[in-house]
Every structure is written in structure tokens, then in C-alpha cells.
């Protein structure tokens, strides 16, 4: 084999290892940020309604900072190789999208759409072949949000807020109806979608308890 041919082939073989290292570093960064995000959002379960805007305010700058990471990953990924590397960051990306969507619910009570989610994280349309927000990742994030909302329904009552469970119930049922319109395959997404039923069941139980309590305070404190 002539040396040039050889050199060329050897280069091709080596490049990938190096790239993987660099992406890994960015993912570690990304992971730290999403860890902070979920840590902050976890406080919602003991935050009274009045202080929610304050909590949301502390989350926003961290969400904002994710833009740098997505930009760095888009920069690193060679054109056309999105599908080759995406598994490395999809866990982090889903967590970031979950945070963005949860914040949106807390702020406006509405659902963050896929393009808006991408925008919030600074993902640009022109990165299409290097870094994009797939439907699958977006849907995973929404399911994570529902998991948290069922917990929030329970904890709101503990904190004396009897309206939140009703709002959550309506919001989640609507979202669930949306999922029911999708033609999901028998994959991880389908399994997690199936598990949503338990969250709905929990929320319904809370709504049930709250409704009956309101009208019929059957038992009185007897500690």
C-alpha cells in the first residue's frame, strides 16, 4: 500500500476517538446545568403558590445558560453526523426540555410547543444536520413533566392549595388526549406513555378527595 493511502486511512480511523472525548466534556457540562435545574424545580413541592414566581425567576438564568452548551455541541458535531452522536446528550437534553416545559406551566399554565422548546434552549434551525430537538426527546420531556405534576397535585393539598390539583387535572388530561393521537411504536416512549395512566389515576384521586372534603368535611381533627 502506498504511504499516502495509508496515512489517509489512519487519519480517518483516529479522528472519531478525539471527537468523542470533546463531546463528552460538553455533555458533562450540560449535565451539571440540568442537575441544577431539576434541583431548583424540586423546591416547587414545598413552595406556596405566592412564592412560585420567585422560584421561576431563579430558574430562568440557568435555562438561559444552556444555550451556550447547545451551541458548543452544534459546533462540535461534524455536518451530517447528528444521528451518530445524539445518544450521548439525549438524557441531558430531555432534562433541559423538561425544565423549560415545567417552567412554562408554572408561569402560564400552558404547554410549551416543540419549536418554542427548541428556541428556549437556543437550538437554531440551521443546525438541522448537527443538533436538533427530535420529537422523541420532546415527548420524553413532557412525560417527565407529568410525573412531577402528579407529585405537585399531592403536595399542593398538603400546603393548603386546593385549586392547583384541579388545574393540573385539566392540563394533564388534555396532554394525555394529545398523546393518544400519536401513533407510537412499541418502544421506550410507548412504555413511558403507558405509565402516564398511573399519574392520572393519582391526580384523579386527589381531585376526588378534594371535592368531597370541600363539600362534606366528614371527619374532624381527632389526634
Amino acid at each position, binding site marked *: 500500500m502506498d504511504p499516502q493511502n495509508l496515512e489517509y486511512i489512519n487519519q480517518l480511523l483516529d479522528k472519531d476517538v478525539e471527537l468523542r472525548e470533546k463531546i463528552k466534556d460538553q455533555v458533562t457540562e450540560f449535565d451539571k446545568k440540568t442537575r441544577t435545574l431539576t434541583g431548583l424545580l424540586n423546591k416547587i413541592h414545598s413552595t406556596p403558590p405566592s412564592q412560585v414566581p420567585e422560584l421561576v425567576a431563579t430558574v430562568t438564568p440557568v435555562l438561559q445558560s444552556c444555550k451556550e452548551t447547545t451551541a458548543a455541541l452544534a459546533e462540535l458535531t461534524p455536518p451530517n453526523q447528528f444521528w451518530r452522536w445524539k445518544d450521548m446528550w439525549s438524557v441531558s437534553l430531555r432534562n433541559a426540555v423538561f425544565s423549560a416545559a415545567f417552567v412554562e406551566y408554572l408561569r402560564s399554565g400552558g404547554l410549551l410547543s416543540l419549536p418554542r422548546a427548541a428556541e428556549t434552549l437556543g437550538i437554531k434551525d440551521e443546525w438541522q444536520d448537527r443538533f436538533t430537538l427530535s420529537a422523541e426527546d420532546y415527548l420524553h420531556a413532557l412525560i417527565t413533566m407529568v410525573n412531577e405534576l402528579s407529585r405537585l397535585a399531592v403536595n399542593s393539598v398538603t400546603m393548603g392549595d386546593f385549586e392547583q390539583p384541579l388545574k393540573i387535572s385539566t392540563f394533564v388530561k388534555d396532554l394525555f388526549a394529545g398523546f*393518544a393521537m400519536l401513533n407510537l411504536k412499541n418502544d421506550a416512549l410507548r412504555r413511558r406513555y403507558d405509565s402516564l395512566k398511573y399519574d392520572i389515576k393519582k391526580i384523579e384521586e386527589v381531585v376526588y378527595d378534594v371535592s368531597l372534603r370541600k363539600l362534606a368535611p366528614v371527619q374532624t381533627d381527632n389526634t
Partner: protein
Amino acid sequence: MSVVLSSRDSILEVFDHFRDELDDFHDRRERLIKCSRDVTNLSKKVIFLIHRSLTEGLGQSDERETSLRAVSRAKEKLKDVQNLFAGMREEVAGDRFWRHQRNVSPGLQEYIEALSLAHYLECQTLISYEEVQKSLSDADGTPYFPLPLDDYLLGLSDLTGELMRYAISSISRRGGRSKANEVCIFVRGCRADFEGLTPHFRELRKKQQVTSQSLEKIEDVAYAIAVRSSEYDLPPELLDDIVERTVAE
């Protein structure tokens, strides 16, 4: 064709024939697999459609009515699936059916799952072997192909998973609360009936475990409902009214 082939040319000639035969077989196989995949997809959509229709009916109309509307929509769509089976008729004529059974089987089972779910919502019973076979027959009652016993049973076994989903979502459905108990008793009966047949069908044995898990989940739902109603000791209708009013506020 000579009986003993002693030249390269004569050998190539008969292999030419084999090639055609094998190609023919593989092509048919591919067509049937594709068709079975279409059947699977359509049937899955029917199942989704049923769950969706039941969800849509939430609180707006009477439980029975909601069920029947779901059933009639499902039956409509199931006709498309039955037409696909009718279209396979020629492909699996004569001894060909059993040659290709394994290729057709996944779709067939998913169809039976969808059909039996619609049937349950309509009649509250398990669809019989003959009813399924009839749904796979032409107007004269001539079957498109024989219904394999294992496909029938495996399809029914999957039904219990869908009933579990039905039972869990029933908790948020007006009047549906009593449904959970009904489904619980029905699935318990299915599991018992299947149990006697497991020695003969290895795959059914595996699915029985899934059925047992589904049953436990349904039992948990029935339990959750019972516990909450017991606390107040009011008729379920009244409880439903109270909840509905609160949510509507």
C-alpha cells in the same frame, strides 16, 4: 427432465427452476409479512381509537353510550383490516397457509386483540373461536384461511393488557368507577381459563405472567376506588356528582 443429471448444463437447468421456486416463495413471504405489518398497524390504531373514544366521552354522556360509540367506530375500522385478510386469500390458498402461518401470525394476533376488545365493550364477554373465524370469512361463511388455535389464544391473552389500561383510566370516568370491578372479575376469569391451556402453548405460558401482572394492577384500581368510597359511605352516583361539580367550578 432426466432423472440423473450428469452434465453441468443439466444441473444448471434444474437449479434455474429452483431459483424461480425459491424466489416465488420469498416474494410471497415478503408480501405477506408486509401485509401482516399493515394489519398490525391498523389493529393497533383501532385499539388506540377505542381508548381515545372512551376518554373523549369523559363525563359528557352516559357510560354505556360512550362504549357503544367507541365500538361502532372500531367496527368501522376493523372492516378495513378484514378486507386486508380477504386480500390475502389467494396468497394462502391450499397448503400455503400453514407454510406462511408464522409470517401472518403477528398481524392476526393483533387483529384478534382489537376485535376482542371491541367485542368485550359491546357484550362484556370473551369473543368465541367461531366468531373470530366468522369475521375472517366471506359472505358465504367460507373462511379465508383456517384460524390457528394459538393465534386465537395469544390474541385474547393480549386483550387483558388493554383491559388493564381501560380499568385504570376508568377511575377518571363518570360511572366508570363501577367498571373497574367488572373488568377485574372478567380478567380474573380469563386468567383462570387460560391457565388450563398453558401446558399446550409455550408462548401462552409467558403471556400468562403478563396477564397476572395486569390483573394485579386492576385489583389495585378496584381497591383504590373501594377504599375511597368506603370512607364516605355515599352512593357512587352521588359521589360522582359531587366531584363533577367541583371540577366544573
